[in-house]
């Protein structure tokens, strides 16, 4: 009997769960249709500009903040689960909608804590640049274990948010998550969440770097920029919350 009889008889697996979707395309596209680092960074710039534009609208018309959040959430779900190929049209709309939401919520925080918005913006971009530097230089190396740790942490945070959301229907959410809770425990929790959100950026950088290296289709530039935007928006909101807690002390 042959040593590799199963392989000889059935050939290599064509199960999509094993081929992971992109394998057929990897490296087989013409150069002009492949994802590049330049393209992903430029598209992140476009999304950031749209987000700032949306924030200007949300700041001036705060009533649009909640519809902006809902539309942004729906667009994010559609982009992630339904059509990565259409990220070129859904990601800019997502950035605009989330910008409107961020503008409204930032105004709310700014009214309560003077000067908090510019501090949160500065810290968010500061973390973005410093982690990019650490990633590019090879100081932080994302591995499978690193990814597992981040995914597990984000799962835990998601459960905490969901529990708080459900509890809010029965009187009040978790006080630990309240921006006005200045206890050390609450600040420590927010700091931990900011750390997880920051380290998620490293996974986004690695995704874009590997996508460009493997020559994924061009639309993945939009998808990479979109995933970076999701993390940046989450990080900004968590930094706002952390600063508000520290000011409440």
């Amino acid at each position: 009997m042959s040593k590799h009889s199963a392989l000889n008889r059935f050939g290599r697996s064509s199960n999509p769960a094993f081929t992971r979707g992109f394998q057929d395309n990897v490296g087989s596209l013409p150069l002009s249709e492949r994802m590049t680092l330049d393209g992903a960074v430029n598209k992140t710039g476009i999304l950031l500009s749209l987000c700032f534009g949306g924030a200007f609208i949300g700041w001036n018309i705060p009533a649009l903040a909640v519809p902006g959040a809902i539309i942004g959430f729906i667009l994010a779900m559609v982009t992630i689960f339904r059509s990565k190929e259409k990220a070129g049209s859904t990601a800019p709309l997502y950035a605009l909608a989330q910008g409107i939401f961020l503008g409204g919520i930032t105004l709310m925080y700014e009214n309560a804590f003077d000067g908090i918005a510019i501090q949160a913006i500065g810290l968010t971009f500061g973390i973005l640049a410093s982690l990019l530097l650490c990633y590019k230089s090879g100081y932080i190396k994302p591995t499978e274990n690193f990814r597992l740790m981040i995914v597990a942490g984000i799962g835990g945070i998601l459960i905490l948010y969901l529990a708080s959301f459900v509890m809010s229907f029965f009187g009040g959410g978790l006080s630990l998550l309240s921006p006005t809770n200045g206890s050390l425990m609450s600040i420590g929790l927010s700091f931990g969440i900011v750390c997880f959100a920051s380290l998620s950026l490293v996974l986004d950088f690695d995704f874009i770097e590997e996508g460009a290296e493997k020559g994924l289709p061009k639309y993945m530039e939009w998808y990479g920029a979109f995933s970076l935007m999701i993390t940046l928006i989450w990080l900004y909101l968590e930094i706002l919350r952390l600063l508000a807690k520290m000011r409440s002390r």
Partner: protein
Amino acid sequence: MNTIIFSVLAIFSLYVFFKLGKVKASSKQLNRNNRINRFGNRNNDESNIIEGESEEVKDENDN
């Protein structure tokens, strides 16, 4: 004063992001064996399957 410091930090960080983002990561980062393999197809040369002619294995009982 705080506003100025954080504004400068934000602008400088964005400048660093747009400049550094377009530069390929260092070889220390890219040439690792423990990189996350999202799209498969990596390390084909280190595959456990040996390519080539398959060989018949004789059963000892046949002798």
